[in-house]
């Protein structure tokens, strides 16, 4: 029996660890934001740092670019609407009807996330460019005139964004639908309402809050989207805020204060959106009581089953199959056309891509960085989640808030702040792989927190409390109870972080240095500076290598979990 000792306040190992983590998160997240704000308010000589004069002049100057802001909102709206429609329809089909091959389709719905918008943007550019696009070439060969579709337009940008964000919307809306009590729909059907009427009058209103939440979230993501606009918009002089910032930063002389002002404005809008999203979402409880999971009853769609299957398959086709096939097709040609002659086929692109030193070093860097980000990130986020959701540390709500902060900041803008923030620190990390690591850990905090917290919140608190009552210290419980039970979530988090870091573009493109090239910006640079065929080869090599790395990881963790538990 421990002797009671007066202690004020209780400083335990837990508290120290918690405070250390809070400090780390605070520095990672808030420090670049401060620099961003400072740059945005700089109305003095832009070459002199620290700023000589502060003012709102940059924000006023932004009025001149109202068109760009309008572009951003218009494209984001269009993309959001499309993404939500894709997501809702596929979620409804896969969770509420008896569509065939449901499980396979569900797994396939995750693939667009892995394929990444960059590949999608490249592929759709190759498919839908007005003159050289494959689809248009086929169209003309069939006797059509001009171009059937034109992807190098704002619509094209919205389309590509929607295709890939659609899978995110699918998962969010699907989760809402799965937690819905099916007896509510059955009541409607028993009364005699048709399936369509049931969906419109019962399902829709019930899932409306969840769909609204997903809409806000997707819209915020679209506002900060960079990749599709970079590939499809830049050449056609169509700017959104993120690509405009990128241009302003990379031109000479750079217009950093203006770029910072734009970044801050975008950030403010996204912040407000995220605020509404969190209000909507945190009113729900996440603990799944054992044995109370709803088993949704699926509607019998009769002959329509195959039509629905077709719809889902079509979505997968458009977002995954078609882009990948297009890239393979293009990468094997010298100058990619829809109807190549025999002489056009070549493996030179792959040879070139594999022997290019830049590609090899970029790929290696990306893999190493990916592993480091995923491993450190999972540990960091695991501990953060534990502190926020399971400890009694005062101020843990603030930690959660700060950790989710980067969600509202477009990656590019964040990197911009980081560029300045770390330039002035005497630590020699600017231009090295370390700053990329720090950048990734920071911008992926919300992603990791969300993944781990999802699993952690589902974990019944009493499982850890009972360990406590058996006398286990904080660390002992973490090791023997919490971690093993969280393993599926931690593995998922690792994989997500790995993929996210390998495919990251917005932050990397600003922070890369000569010794720290990473693959996705290298691919984008290649797109702008070399042939699209070579770029296609590089992109496919990246996809294959990443997929292989993931497969290895999954095998390793399965093996570790297999023989005997904990």
């Amino acid at each position, binding site marked *: *029996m*421990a*002797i*009671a*000792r*007066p*202690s*004020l*306040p*209780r400083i*335990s190992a837990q508290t120290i660890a918690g405070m250390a983590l809070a400090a780390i998160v605070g520095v990672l997240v808030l420090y670049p934001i401060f620099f961003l704000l400072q740059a945005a308010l700089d109305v003095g000589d832009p070459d002199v740092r620290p700023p000589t004069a502060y003012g709102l002049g940059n924000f006023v100057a932004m009025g001149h670019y109202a068109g760009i802001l309008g572009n951003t909102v218009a494209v984001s709206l269009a993309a959001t609407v499309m993404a939500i429609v894709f997501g809702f329809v596929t979620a409804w089909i896969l969770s509420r009807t008896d569509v065939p091959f449901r499980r396979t389709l569900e797994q396939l719905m995750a693939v667009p996330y892995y394929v990444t918008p960059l590949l999608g943007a490249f592929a759709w550019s190759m498919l839908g460019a007005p003159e050289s696009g494959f689809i248009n070439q086929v169209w003309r060969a069939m006797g059509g005139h001009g171009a059937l579709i034109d992807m190098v337009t704002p619509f094209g940008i919205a389309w590509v964004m929607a295709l890939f964000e659609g899978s995110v919307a699918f998962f969010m809306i699907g989760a809402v639908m799965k937690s819905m009590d099916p007896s509510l729909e059955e009541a409607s059907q028993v009364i005699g309402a048709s399936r369509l009427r049931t969906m419109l009058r019962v399902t829709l209103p019930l899932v409306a809050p969840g769909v609204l939440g997903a809409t806000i979230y997707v819209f915020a993501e679209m506002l900060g989207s960079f990749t599709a606009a970079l590939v499809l918009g830049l050449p056609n002089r169509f700017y959104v805020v993120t690509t405009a910032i990128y241009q302003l930063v990379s031109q000479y002389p750079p217009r950093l204060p203006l770029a910072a002002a734009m970044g801050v404005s975008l950030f403010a809008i996204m912040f407000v959106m995220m605020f509404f999203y969190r209000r909507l979402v945190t009113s729900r409880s996440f603990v799944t009581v*054992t044995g109370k999971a709803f088993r949704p009853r699926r509607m019998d769609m009769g002959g329509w089953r195959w039509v629905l299957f077709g719809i889902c398959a079509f979505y997968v086709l458009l977002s995954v199959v078609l882009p990948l096939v297009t890239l393979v097709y293009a990468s094997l040609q010298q100058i990619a056309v829809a109807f190549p002659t025999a002489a056009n086929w070549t493996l030179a692109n792959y040879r070139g891509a594999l022997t290019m030193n830049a590609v090899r070093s970029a790929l290696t860097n990306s893999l190493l960085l990916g592993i480091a980000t995923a491993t450190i990130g999972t540990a960091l986020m695991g501990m953060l989640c534990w502190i926020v959701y399971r400890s*009694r540390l005062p101020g843990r709500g603030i930690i959660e808030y700060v950790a989710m902060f980067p969600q509202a900041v477009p990656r590019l803008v964040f990197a911009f702040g980081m560029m300045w923030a770390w330039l002035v620190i005497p630590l020699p990390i600017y231009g090295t792989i370390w700053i990329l690591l720090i950048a990734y850990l920071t911008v992926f905090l919300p992603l990791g927190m969300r993944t781990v917290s999802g699993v952690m919140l589902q974990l*019944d608190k*009493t*499982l850890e*409390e*009972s*360990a*406590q*009552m*058996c*006398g*286990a*210290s904080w660390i*002992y419980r973490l090791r*023997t*109870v919490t971690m*093993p*039970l969280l393993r599926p979530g931690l593995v998922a988090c690792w994989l997500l972080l790995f993929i996210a870091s390998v495919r990251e573009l917005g932050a990397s493109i600003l922070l890369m240095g000569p010794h720290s090239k990473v693959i996705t910006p290298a691919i984008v640079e290649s797109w702008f500076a070399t042939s699209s065929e070579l770029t296609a080869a590089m992109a496919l090599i990246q996809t294959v290598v990443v997929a292989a790395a993931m497969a290895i990881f999954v095998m390793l963790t399965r093996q570790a979990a297999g023989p005997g*538990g*904990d």
Partner: protein
Amino acid sequence: MDSQPTTSPLTLKAEPIEVEDLRIQYGPVIAVRDVSFAVRPGEQLTLLGPSGCGKTTTLRALAGLERPSSGTIRVGGHVVYSSAQRIDIPAEKRGLSMVFQSYAIWPHMTVFDNVAYGLRVRKRPRAEIETRVQEALDLVQMGAYAARRASQLSGGQQQRVALARACAFSPQVLLFDEPLSNLDAKLRADMRIELRELQHRLGVTSVYVTHDLEEALAMSDRIVVMRDGVVEQAGTPTEIYARPRNAFVADFVGSSNLVQGRLRPDLARGGLIALETASGEIVLGDPCGRTPGATPTFSIRTVHLQFSAQRPAGEVNVWPVRVHRCVFQGDFTQIHVAWGDRDLVIRSAALEPIAEGQAAWISADPARCVLLEGE
């Protein structure tokens, strides 16, 4: 915790518990308000009350899983929590053990590993762990399941394993948070008896939380009835049943008729007092050492009212009534009668047929008409 001697679970030194002026506040909401009680070594105290009354919160504060706003908690004479002295010993160091409502069995471990957890934490030698785990499992008739994966157990089996786990490392205090509420009725009734026997056998001090009246009455040495964070009454089961302090306890612990009336000191006799109802009925009852207040009220249990078609013998507490409604409930029949200007409810085991509208008689033993504590 590492100073525990190697004792078998059958011989424990039970500890007393004292809770003083415990207050637990969440923002503006006061969940537990100045609750005090004491548990003698080896006794089972039950916290009884409707949901939201603060009983679970109090238990968790005792365990160390909730932090009170003020008050003192002592276990075995040692202060484990004191707001005045700024002491708050973490849950894992208080030496208490707990069985949770959801059992909280770890699905990724075997039954053996679950039960052995507390012993492993205390770094007991392997041989000792094996013996004691087997003993604990045998105690709950789960001896054969040691190697089974915990996720493959039924609800009842999980509950037993939770119990075994809680006992295995010989705690001095066992806390129970509604452990039987997730079981079906039949199993619950059986487990009640088993738990009681176990507690007696181990001689361990127990604090038990439930909203189920039968459980509390059957298993407890003493009961603390709580409502809205406040202790309404504390006492033995019989005390609480026979002499409820106020209307809430009277109606919560069993069902009761509340009869309010004007004090008739002129009719008081033999230690009994008389109340005259608004419609003129005179009721004699036991004041139980309480002073009648401005609105004196008797509590008469529904099972203590005698129902008969004929006028019963006796002068006192006999009244004619008319039957309103009759509901057959199996073990008893619930009869609603019109009495004066109001209704009374009677639970009677009588088998004779009762017709609605029938005229009948009821009577009550004055000793069973209990004066509630006055306002």
